[in-house]
């Protein structure tokens, strides 16, 4: 089902794009991904478990997990949650492991690109890094897996917090537009090259410069680029966490961010009645946005004894009549082929389920807002030191105050460097972009660098900044050790 009326987003009727799912004709809309078009048509099951017979739908909705792999025009393992829908394509479910097709994978020979700074990921951190580097006069290539730049900003319909410098009071979707305008201007001046629908697949042997393979998708096939650069900024974001409970792989159990993408980017309703698991800011914000899209939120359950997100977000939901139950969690999902309900359970002070406290509720969608894990696989492949820091969300790269990792010329920014807010990601991006430009001799503006660090410190000063503050202190300490050993 499509969302046609919305208080914040103008969902215009778009051009219809007919395509085929299991040989049956379905009509999607221009701008859809394959998965969003299927979901709008009521198709939630996209694949089956490799090990069991259980059906699977997508989970992350942003190309990070492999829960939506399908065969498109004979090409297997297409991530349908980010693959653009095109007219007339044949979409099929795969039988367990896909067959290697008799197809030409690399349709065109590889192309070479030479650039000062490569930026991986065009979310808030990556965009700010690209703009900052390019303004200092170094050449930039920015690569993103999605059709559009903006990362997760393009689904943030709420107004951002912070101060004027971080565009407080502006909605995330509008910040994405402003950043894209800046990016496109620099692109038209040939200071930045932008590649969307493309993945940086790895770092390769090279004599002088860093060498990366970049795969651009075209007609669900790939074109390989050989990219050489002097510095690289990894702003690859993060992935939503899964939670352990019976039936957690049933179609209809989604990451809260995935649901936010589906409704706020593609205008597709995730379901009719939603259970939200997790009352941090993501859980609270997405719940409110579900209400704005005309979807019922049955309640929010939170395992912790208190609400983790801002009270202002919780208060908005409460005055709409949405219940928030702390010290409660989900025990199991009910339903055979799809979500039909859930069993909730009350937890004691030690977070253990209380006997006979189970309650059944009816719902067709379950959203998990139980934290994020930094995406660090590329960092690891490059050979950057990684350490486990729970406050940062998992393994992260120790980095200095210029966002440089243990490998010279390799920088991190945003959620990939430790889970935090978009506002801090933007400043970290600016720092990394400026520091890389300084390192390459494009700038000497160390004063500006100090100013950005000061802004970052202010944002982390309050009690809600405690966790990232601890994480970043640990990271700084480890960086001293790691960098000294290089």
């Amino acid at each position: 089902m499509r969302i046609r009326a919305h208080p914040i987003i103008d969902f215009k009727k778009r051009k219809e794009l007919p395509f085929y799912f299991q040989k049956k004709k379905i009509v999607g809309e221009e701008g859809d991904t394959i998965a969003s078009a299927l979901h709008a048509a009521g198709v939630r099951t996209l694949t089956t478990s490799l090990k069991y017979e259980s059906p699977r739908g997508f989970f992350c909705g942003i190309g990070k997990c492999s829960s939506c792999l399908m065969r498109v025009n004979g090409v297997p393992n297409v991530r349908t949650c980010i693959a653009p829908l095109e007219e007339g394509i044949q979409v099929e479910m795969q039988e367990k492991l896909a067959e290697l097709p008799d197809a030409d994978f690399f349709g065109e020979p590889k192309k070479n690109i030479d650039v000062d700074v490569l930026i991986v990921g065009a979310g808030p951190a990556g965009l700010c890094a690209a703009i900052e580097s390019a303004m200092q006069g170094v050449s930039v290539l920015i690569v993103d897996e999605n059709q559009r730049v903006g990362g997760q900003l393009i689904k943030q319909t709420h107004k951002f917090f912070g101060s004027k410098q971080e565009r407080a009071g502006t909605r995330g979707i509008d910040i994405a537009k402003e950043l894209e305008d800046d990016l496109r201007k620099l692109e038209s001046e040939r200071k930045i090259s932008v590649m969307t629908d493309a993945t940086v697949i790895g770092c390769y042997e090279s004599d002088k410069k860093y060498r990366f393979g970049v795969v651009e998708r075209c007609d669900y096939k790939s074109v390989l680029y050989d990219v050489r650069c002097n510095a690289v900024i990894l702003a690859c974001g993060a992935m939503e966490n899964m939670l352990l409970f019976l039936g957690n792989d049933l179609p209809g159990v989604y990451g809260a961010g995935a649901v936010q993408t589906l409704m706020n980017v593609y205008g597709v309703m995730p379901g009719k009645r939603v259970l939200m698991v997790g009352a941090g800011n993501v859980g609270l914000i997405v719940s409110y946005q579900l209400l704005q899209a005309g979807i019922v939120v049955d309640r929010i359950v939170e395992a912790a004894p208190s609400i983790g997100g801002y009270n202002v977000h919780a208060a908005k939901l409460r005055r709409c009549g949405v219940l928030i139950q702390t010290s409660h969690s989900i025990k199991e999902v009910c339903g055979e082929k799809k979500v039909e309900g859930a069993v909730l359970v009350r937890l004691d002070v030690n977070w253990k389920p209380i006997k006979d406290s189970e309650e059944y509720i009816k719902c067709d969608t379950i959203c998990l807002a139980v934290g994020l894990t930094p995406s660090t696989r590329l960092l690891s492949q490059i050979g950057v030191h990684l350490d486990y820091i729970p406050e940062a969300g998992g393994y992260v790269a120790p980095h200095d105050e210029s966002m440089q990792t243990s490998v010279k010329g390799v920088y991190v920014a945003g959620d990939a460097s430790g889970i935090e807010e978009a506002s801090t990601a933007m400043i970290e991006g600016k720092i990394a972009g400026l520091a890389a430009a300084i390192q390459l001799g494009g700038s000497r503006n160390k004063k500006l660098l100090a100013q950005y660090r000061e802004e970052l410190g202010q944002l982390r000063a309050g009690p809600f900044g405690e966790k990232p503050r601890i994480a970043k202190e640990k990271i700084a300490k480890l960086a001293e050790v790691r960098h000294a050993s290089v």
Partner: protein
Amino acid sequence: MRQYEKTGILSIKDLQAPSKKQFEKGVAILECVQEIPCNPCVDSCPVHAISMKDINAPPVNDFEKCIGCTKCVGVCPGLAIFVIKIKANTAWITLPYEFVTVPKVGDVVQALDRIGKVRGKALVKKVVKYGKTMVVTIEVNSSLAMSIRNIKV
């Protein structure tokens, strides 16, 4: 742990309390009590009534200076500011609203409290567009002035 950290619901005790006289001219109630990094309300205030020790401190409204102009209502990213004006038995509540069905002046809508419970009817007196946020002024009985925080159209 404070009660609102468990429930999400603020009580009047958590908030600054204006005097009867201050209510009569109309003042902004800032339902933002936690230390979060946010300050657009400070910048929005034309008479510098709203202040903050630093960006993380909760905002404080100087009710003597506040003129109840409602500018901060549409600005607040947390949708947490309400302007209350009370005269005799009537109260006017100005609140932020971000749903599809926008009320019109003269409509009678349902008045909801902080837990979304319908507490009576409200007459819509004014609707101002601030970007995509609607700033709606409703009229209710003065006994409900500090209870009603939402409407259902």
